[in-house]
C-alpha cells in the first residue's frame, strides 16, 4: 500500500529525515514513534505530498507522490499535528466543504458527512462554531475530516493530543476499527498508544529509523527473565558473595532494597538461589524476573543502547552499553 524508499529531507544544512525506507502492507496499522523533533511530521508530510523530499520517493498504491500527486491525494486522509480547521465555520458545513474538495461525489456528501460525525461522536456539536469547541472536540473534527471520504491510507499525526482519557480510548478504538480495510500510519510519542492500537512499530530518532519491529518483537527485546530480583527478609552480609559463588550467576548488584542477580545465558540458577536462601535462613520473600517495559526499551533505543539489549541472550551484561554503534537494523554505513 505504501512504499517509502530512501527519503531524505534537508533544510539548508540541517537534515531532518535521513534515508528513511519502509513499507506498509494494506490493512496494517503502523505506529510511528519517536521523540519530538525526530522527523515524524516531516516524513508524514512527504508521504502526503505536502512537502517534497530532497531525495528518494514515496509511493501510495503504486502512485508516486511527486509524479502523480492527485492520484495519491485521492486515496489519502490526513490529520496534521494542528487540526486544519476554519474557526469561523460551523462543524457540518466545514465537513461538507472538505468532502467536496476531497472529491466525494455530490450525492454521497451528506451520508458520508453524517457517518463521519457519528463515528467521531460529533452529533452534539455538529451545528456549533468550530472556534468555540474545546480542544478535544476540535481534534475530533480534524479526525472526522480525515476519514470522511473513506481513504485507503490514513495518516494521523499525534491524533490523541489534547484529549481526555475517555476520548483517547474512543479515538483509539476508532483507529483500530480502521485497520483491516484501511492502512493507517499513526505518529505518537506515547508508547501506550502504540501498544493498544498498532500492529507494527517504527522508531525514528534524529531523522533515522532506529528500530522497526512488531510489538511482540519489541517486548522480547526486554530480555525477559535474564535478570531476577531477589529480596530477603533478613539480608546477611554474606548473601551477595554467596549468590555470586553459585554456578550460573554472572553478577549480583544491590538495588531497591533487594539484590539483582544477572544470570549467565543458558542457565537458570533460580532453584539454587532459593535453596541457598532457605539453607542459610535469609528468609526469601520475593523473587521475580525483571523485564524491561516498552518505555525502557524505547528510551534505550533512542539513546542508542539498544545494541546491548538486542544482544541480551548472548552478551553477559545488560547495562554495558556496548561499543557498537547505535543503529540496530537501519543506519547507513556512513
Amino acid at each position, binding site marked *: 500500500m505504501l512504499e517509502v524508499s530512501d527519503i531524505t529531507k534537508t533544510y539548508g544544512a540541517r537534515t531532518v529525515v535521513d534515508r528513511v525506507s519502509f513499507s506498509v502492507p494494506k490493512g496494517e496499522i503502523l505506529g510511528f514513534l519517536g521523540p519530538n523533533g525526530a522527523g515524524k511530521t516531516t516524513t508524514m508530510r512527504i508521504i502526503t505530498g505536502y512537502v517534497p523530499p530532497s531525495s528518494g520517493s514515496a509511493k501510495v498504491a503504486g502512485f508516486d507522490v511527486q509524479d502523480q500527486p492527485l492520484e495519491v491525494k485521492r486515496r*489519502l486522509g490526513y490529520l*496534521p499535528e494542528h487540526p486544519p480547521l476554519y474557526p469561523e*465555520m460551523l462543524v457540518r458545513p466545514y465537513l461538507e466543504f472538505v468532502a*467536496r*474538495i476531497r472529491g466525494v461525489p455530490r450525492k454521497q456528501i451528506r451520508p458520508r458527512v453524517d457517518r463521519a460525525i457519528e463515528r467521531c461522536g460529533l452529533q452534539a456539536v455538529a451545528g456549533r462554531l468550530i472556534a468555540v469547541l474545546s480542544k478535544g472536540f476540535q481534534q475530533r473534527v480534524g479526525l472526522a475530516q480525515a476519514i470522511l471520504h473513506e481513504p485507503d491510507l490514513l495518516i494521523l499525526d499525534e491524533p490523541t493530543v489534547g484529549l481526555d482519557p475517555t476520548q483517547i480510548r474512543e479515538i483509539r478504538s476508532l483507529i483500530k476499527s480502521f485497520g483491516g480495510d484501511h492502512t493507517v500510519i499513526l505518529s505518537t510519542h506515547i508508547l501506550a498508544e502504540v501498544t493498544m492500537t498498532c500492529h507494527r512499530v517504527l522508531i525514528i530518532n534524529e531523522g533515522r529509523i532506529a528500530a522497526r519491529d512488531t510489538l511482540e518483537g519489541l517486548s522480547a527485546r526486554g530480555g525477559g527473565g535474564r535478570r531476577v530480583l531477589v529480596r530477603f527478609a533478613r539480608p546477611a552480609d554474606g548473601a551477595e558473595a554467596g549468590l555470586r559463588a553459585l554456578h550460573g550467576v554472572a553478577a549480583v548488584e544491590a538495588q531497591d532494597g533487594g539484590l539483582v542477580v544477572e544470570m549467565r545465558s543458558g542457565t537458570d540458577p533460580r532453584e539454587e538461589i532459593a535453596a541457598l536462601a532457605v539453607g542459610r535462613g535469609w528468609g526469601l520473600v520475593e523473587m521475580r524476573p525483571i523485564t524491561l517495559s516498552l518505555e525502557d526499551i524505547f528510551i534505550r533505543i533512542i539513546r542508542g543502547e539498544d545494541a546491548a539489549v538486542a544482544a541480551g541472550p548472548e552478551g553477559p551484561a545488560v547495562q554495558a552499553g556496548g561499543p557498537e554503534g547505535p543503529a540496530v537494523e537501519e543506519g547507513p554505513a556512513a
Partner: protein
Amino acid sequence: MRNTLAIAAREVRTYFTSPLAYVVIGVFLLLSGYIFWASLVRFSELCLRFASNPYYSSQLNVNDMVVRPIFGTMGIIFLLLLPVVTMRLLAEERRTGTAELLFTCPVTSGQVVLGKFLGAACLFLTMIGVTVTYPILIMNSGAAPDMKPTLAGYFGVLLMGLSLLALGLLFSSLTDNQVVAAVSAFGTFLFLWVIDWMASSATVTLGALMSRLTLGLWEKFGLGTAGPTLGDLLGSLSIIGHLRDFQKGVIDTRDVVFYASVIFMSLFLTQRVVESRRWR
C-alpha cells in the same frame, strides 16, 4: 471547476460570516454615496443658476458632472480598501495550517488560487453591484444619464477592481502575515497610482534616455532619440490612468488588454509562488 467553486464558495461564506465584508462594503458605500450626493447637489445648483441661459445649460451634462466623477472616486477607494479584502486569502491559510488541508486534497494549486480569486471577486461584485442603484435613482428625473457611457464606466471599474484583487492575492501568497500582505499590496497600489502624476512631468524621450545610459552608443547605431517619452511609459503603467477612457464612455482595447494582462500575470505568479513555497 468543481474544486474551484467549492473553494470560492467557502471564501464567500467566510467573508460574510465575519464583519469584514460588511465593514468594507459599508465604508465603500458611505464614501461613494457621499460623492454621488455631493456631485448631484452641485449639478442641480448649476442647473438652477444657468436655467435662464440656454447656452450654458446646454453645456451641463449629467454624465460629465455626476457619473464620471463617481467612477474616478470608486477607483481611488478601491486602492485603499481592496488590500483589506485580499490580505487574508492565502496568508491566513498558511498561518493557521489549513493550507496543509488544501494541499493534501486532490486539488491543484491553480484551482486554489482561482477559487480564492473568485471568492474575493464575489465580494467585490456585491460591493459595486449595490452602487448600480445610483444611476437608477436618477433615471426617471430630468437628469437621466446616458446609459452606454455609464455601462462602459462600470466595465472599467470592474476590470480595475479585479486587477487590484489579483495583485493583492499575489502579495497574500508571499507572506504568512496578513498585515505585511495588506501593507505591501497597499504600497504597490499607491505606487501604480502615483506614477500617473509623474507621467506628465517626465518629458524626456525613451530614446534620449537610452542614449544617455549607453554613453552615446545608442545614437551611433542610428536608433534615434525621438519617439515616446518616459512619461508615456509610466502613464501606460498607471492603474488609474487606464480607467480614464472608460470614465468617458470609451472602451479601448488597449485598456482592456492592460487590465486583462495584470489579472492574468498576477494569478499566474501567485500560482508559481504557492507551488514554490512547498519547496522551502
